């Protein structure tokens, strides 16, 4: 009813192969993007931009990276935090060591270094699978934690081991205000989401999915597992690395390895699982869930408490937040094991046939 595609005939291969084949989808996504670029900066206040939307965007980007590897290629990785760290620290090094290094190039160099590290730690995936691979990628996490804490070169020999970046400028645009930061991250996210979406629809994306679904069969039909797996590691690591650079440069401004600890890796993995494995859209849902729900709980529970006459101390609040958050994860996974993205597509389907049941 609301969402009918009747009459939208595809008369060429081009129209049949575009990202959003349904006109309404196309316009809706375009409207969302335009709103994100124009409407959000006008409507949102500084707190929302700096404390919620910017981290949400950066972590969505990282989740897209993780989703390519875990969701599309089926290789479980627990070293995503480490790859973010590589992106941040190597981007930092590029920025401080080379005079006049443009910001965007520095971020991309960080991403490139993350690619190399990711591919190196992806090598075990050629031999081991599933949980064993997860354990192998854990090595990346511990190794990088160690490296950035111990080797002074990476932190430009900062005595405390913490590095900081400021005065971000690119192409004459000085990125200081929350609006600038938000728009800068949004630009990256839109470009990379589009690239990722196109990649997973292309031949290489199909190879990844074939490997994920059954690697022996994939090999039989002529897909080289080494190429497919390592390319998935490379692409995913690159995106995660750039996200790490943004997290350090734009969101935190100053960071230490603890900002990219094993907790971050788990957080990213949960985002992908909750959002929906093998869905670019799901990465955004997952990131929104993981970033925003704890903050919302933290802000609304006290007022809910005062309403019924209980004042909640911050410690209790933090515990309740953990419990509710955990319960929500479990509930979502039971109700919809395929993630929030699946809920989204069910909703879309319902809208299409409304008011009829099927």
């Amino acid at each position, binding site marked *: 009813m609301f969402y009918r595609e009747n009459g939208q005939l595809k008369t060429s291969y081009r129209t049949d192969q575009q990202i959003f084949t349904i006109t309404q989808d196309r316009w809706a996504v375009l409207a969302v993007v335009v709103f994100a670029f124009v409407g959000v900066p006008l409507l949102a206040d500084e707190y929302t931009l700096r404390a919620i939307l910017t*981290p949400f965007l950066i972590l969505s980007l990282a989740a897209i990276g993780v989703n390519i590897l875990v969701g599309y290629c089926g290789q479980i990785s627990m070293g995503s935090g480490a790859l973010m760290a590589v992106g941040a620290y190597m981007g930092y090094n590029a920025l401080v060591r080379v005079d006049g290094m443009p910001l965007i190039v520095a971020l991309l160099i960080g991403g490139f270094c993350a690619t190399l590290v990711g591919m190196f730690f992806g090598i075990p995936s050629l031999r081991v699978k599933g949980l064993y691979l997860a354990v192998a990628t854990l090595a990346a996490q511990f190794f990088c934690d160690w490296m950035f804490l111990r080797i002074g070169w990476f932190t430009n020999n900062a005595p*405390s081991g*913490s590095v*900081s970046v400021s*005065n971000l400028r690119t192409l004459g645009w000085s990125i200081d205000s929350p609006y600038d930061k938000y728009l800068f991250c949004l630009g990256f996210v839109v470009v990379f989401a589009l690239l990722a979406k196109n990649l997973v629809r292309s031949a290489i994306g199909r190879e990844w999915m074939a490997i994920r679904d059954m690697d022996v069969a994939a090999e039989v039909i002529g897909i080289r597992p080494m190429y497919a797996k390592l390319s998935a590691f490379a692409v995913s690591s690159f995106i995660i690395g750039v996200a790490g650079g943004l997290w350090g440069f734009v969101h935190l401004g100053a960071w*230490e390895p603890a900002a990219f600890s094993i907790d971050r890796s788990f957080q990213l993995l949960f985002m992908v699982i909750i959002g929906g494995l093998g869905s670019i859209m799901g990465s955004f849902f997952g990131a929104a869930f993981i970033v925003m729900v704890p903050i919302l709980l933290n802000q609304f529970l006290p007022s809910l408490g005062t*309403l019924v006459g209980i004042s909640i101390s911050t*410690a209790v609040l*933090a*515990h309740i937040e953990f419990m509710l958050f955990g319960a929500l994860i479990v509930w979502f996974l039971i109700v919809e094991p395929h993630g929030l993205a699946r809920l989204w597509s069910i909703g879309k389907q319902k809208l299409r046939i409304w008011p009829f049941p099927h």
Partner: protein
Amino acid sequence: MKKTRALAMVTAALMMGAVAAPSSAQDKQQFFPLLTFRTGPYAPSGTPWANGFVDYFKLVNAKGGINGVRVLWEECETGYATDRGVECYERMKDKNGGATLFQTMSTGITFALTERGAVDGVPILTPGYGLSESADGEVFKWSFPIAGTHWASADTQIQYVGAKLGGMDKLKGKKITLLYHDSPYGKEAIPVLTERSKQHGFEFAAIPVSHPGLDQKAAWLQIRQTRPDYVLLWGWGVMNSTALKEAQSTRYPRNQIVGVWPSGSDSDVKGVAGAEGYSAVLILPGPGFGSKIAKDVLSTLHAKGEGSGPKDEVGSALYMRGLMNAMFAVEGVRRAQEKFGKGQVMTAAQARWGYENLNIDLKRLQELGIDDVMRPVATTCKDHMGPSWARAYTWKGSAWEVSSDWLQADPKVLNPLIKASADKYLADKKWSRRAAQDCQS
């Protein structure tokens, strides 16, 4: 249907709560946000610290506020995590007419907020911790490591070791090992100790222990092999008690282990059999169960059931630290009121002037009832730290006992380090020092 109605009710409740939350604007209020950590691996250290803060604010209000301006505070739980700390900062900085200042209570959060504070114009107070080079007020206009930094801790610690040996010249040829929490906090000790080892000719080695500090077997094996004359312990939370237990299993004598203030609270030694003899050099203040202010808290707050934590915590080292931190926050505003108008609510910029021109002399300390564990503190435009005094305390099995005279971090050692680091910071950012006339503002 029932479900939807329940959902609607909850939503409505939430909305009403959101609307009702900003309490009706009362008379003048000065807002102090708190970034506390009462949960997570460091909660045993964070809870008494936070309680001290809150109790001091309650005490100020009970005594009529800051010249009539009531203290308003709100806690935000960070769990000692940097990103949550940043979120809390953003959430609270414009609340209730704007935050007067932020006290980060964590080295990692300090790093993340130092620049934000400078850009947003909010003072960042880190008494006894924080970014060591931020003592240079000409570079870090908005940062205040009042009364001490980790570098000052390291320097007083080595002076205490020297005093134990019978003079700084006796350090020559000795072996001193630093066992540190592998984080920016722990690493802060290294530059000062390296500098001191060059001066006095002792052999210095540093052994890191990774977060959270439960696995120290390898570190203590190394200590057993090298047999240093002293071990300097820079732990945090659960790492401290673990270190003391490991020391026993390697039979390293406790009286040769010297801690710093994050390693010298009651929770670190209570319940560790055989911790007697362990000493810690605490930068202002030390434990003060007998202090007038502790008795004040007990009689004004706890007697009415308004205390924030358990009664026996009042006076413990970390609790006193909370009191002292809150005291600096309030005294800075009091000082600012002298210039900008008594009984007025100070803006963050005005409060900044107060923190830069603090002058808490002995008389004031006596009035506050904290003179037995504190020494006078004064800051200037150039020096945001002021004199940093510390005293060593030795654990006697049931209580800490003062075991040294007042020690002061040697400016001759610290100042060149601070200047070099601050200049490097400036060079990295391509900024320049504050002009002299900026000090008047």
